[in-house]
């Protein structure tokens, strides 16, 4: 199945007629949780990438950044995805990729649903980390504890 065929079949399953990528291989799913981009990646192997904004990186976001990197450990809290920051838009993002050859339309829809659930959960987690951080001093203390280990 080609990438274009996968996108088209996915559109049929989720009820979007004529769902197709643009000339750059990108298309978007929009819901009340925001926008999820579906991106074609050809190198080094053919992959499909899901990418979605999580939240704006707030001022003094060190605690939130640490929480994001800790969530990435072992892909446990991210359920196979990865948290990152787009420095141009100043947003946390969640991304996940899968090998094209490993996907069917059904498994891809399941992946998107899991990704959306994880996105909501991580958004809550990072917002909580930011609200509980108590500013930069708490994180500086946490980092200094790392260094004493």
């Amino acid at each position: 199945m080609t990438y274009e065929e996968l996108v088209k079949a996915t559109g049929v399953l989720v009820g979007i007629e004529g769902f197709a990528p643009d000339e750059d291989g990108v298309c978007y799913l929009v819901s009340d949780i925001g926008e999820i981009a579906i991106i074609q990646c050809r190198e080094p192997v053919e992959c499909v990438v899901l990418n979605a904004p999580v939240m704006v990186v707030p001022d003094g976001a060190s605690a939130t950044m640490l929480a994001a990197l800790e969530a990435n450990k072992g892909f446990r809290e991210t359920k196979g995805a990865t948290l990152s920051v787009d420095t141009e838009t100043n947003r946390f993002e969640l991304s996940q990729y899968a090998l094209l050859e490993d996907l069917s339309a059904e498994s891809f829809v399941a992946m998107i649903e899991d990704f959306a659930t994880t996105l909501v959960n991580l958004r809550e987690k990072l917002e909580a980390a930011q609200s509980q951080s108590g500013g930069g001093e708490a994180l500086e203390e946490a980092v200094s504890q790392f260094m004493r280990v």
Partner: protein
Amino acid sequence: MTFEDAMSSLGEELGFDLPVREGAARLAANSADGGEDPLTVEFFETPDGGGALLSCEIGEVSTVGDLMPLLAANRLFADTSGASLSVADGRIYLEQQVPLFVIGRGEGAGFVKSFVLTAHEWRNRLSGSGGDGGETVDDAQIASPGFLQV
């Protein structure tokens, strides 16, 4: 294919036994230039049982200023060659998931090689010995890391 079968298959590719002990298999990887400070790569079974998680400690968080570059590098996996940078207990890790069927069809060693080269590149970058960090994995693949049994 089970995780143990996949590790056995990967061990055959690499030329030594890769036994699973306490849920993980381990190997050491010399740097691409034959340096003496090998990285230890651990392989764990992914929670869904369908993949192997490669994990390698590459440095430590020393200041909060270390965090943003790691997150920026993760964006769309562009600066990590498909892997993910993470932190636990103040230590920085590079991690990547590989489907077991990829290992089972004999592509595991190449995958691990690419991962190790990225890990070496990042360890050098974090330790300040990697220059501007501009070296790409493709460039580094000219040299070949050596894998050792742990």
